[in-house]
């Protein structure tokens, strides 16, 4: 059945939406909401997740006429999601609304504990503590929007330079150079945090 949105292919649904069947877009939204949520939750502060995910799907809908289907709808949607998160940070940095959390003694203690820790499992457990998330937000808040996105995608998520470049729409060389520089910046920030 070609008109069944559950069984239809992404390209078929896109074609129907472009012909004026706006409601067919809802099946794409349902199909890929978890993929987009996963991306947005990682890159954007919790309070801004809902607004950002709305922007992702609105942007996707408005960009549908340019969808060529070469790399698949999921990959195309993921790149829109990542670029929307990047735009969120650019806008936030421009308006100087980046929350500057304060580093306290408990964060420095956490840093010391991680450095002296030997077991890998214990290090991962340390990562689930509030101090880890607060320290991460504090350190990333001191990077530019570009450095932040590259660090999150390559350093923290473990994507390759090519994968990050495809998602951000940058060249691979640009991603690699920026990744090297921002990693140095992050290491400097963490070193300074330890010395405070």
């Amino acid at each position: 059945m070609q008109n069944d949105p559950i069984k239809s292919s992404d390209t078929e649904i896109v074609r129907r939406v472009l012909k004026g069947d706006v409601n067919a877009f809802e099946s794409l939204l349902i199909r890929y909401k978890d993929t987009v949520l996963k991306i947005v939750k990682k890159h954007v502060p919790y309070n801004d997740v809902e607004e950002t995910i709305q922007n992702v799907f609105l942007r996707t809908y408005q960009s549908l006429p340019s969808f060529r289907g070469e790399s698949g709808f999921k990959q195309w949607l993921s790149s829109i999601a990542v670029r929307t998160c990047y735009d969120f940070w650019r806008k936030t940095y421009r308006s100087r609304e980046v929350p500057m959390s304060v580093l306290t003694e408990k964060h420095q203690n956490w840093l010391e504990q991680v450095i002296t820790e030997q077991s890998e499992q214990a290090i991962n457990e340390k990562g689930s503590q509030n101090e880890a998330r607060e320290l991460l937000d504090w350190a990333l808040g001191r990077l530019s929007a570009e450095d932040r996105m590259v660090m999150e995608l390559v350093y923290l998520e473990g994507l390759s330079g090519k994968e990050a470049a495809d998602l951000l729409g940058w060249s691979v060389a640009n991603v690699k150079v920026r990744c090297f520089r921002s990693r140095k910046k992050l290491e400097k920030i963490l070193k300074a945090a330890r010395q405070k």
Partner: protein
Amino acid sequence: MNSIKHEDHVKLKKALASAYGKKESADVGDLWQVKVMEHIRNLDPFHTQPSYLDLFQRLVWQLAPVACVLVFILGMVLSQVDFMTDYVIAKIFIEDPSNYSLFALL
């Protein structure tokens, strides 16, 4: 001075990556889906260039009722008009050639 060695950076990276991965578990409601679809329904429809086949199909279906009406009218007119077949003309000519020339003049 508290410097951080390379292996310490590796440990920090693992811990921070683990903290970063935990951000996925934040819970978000489903109200945004309704808002997105509401917003999309209020947007202008796409202005895409239709293909020639689509244009042809649209034209055929628009002309179909007109063609039906024309066929009906033509059928009615033909049923009312008195017409003569070749066979009838040949029969008149054979039976009475002089009358035929008068008939042809009319």
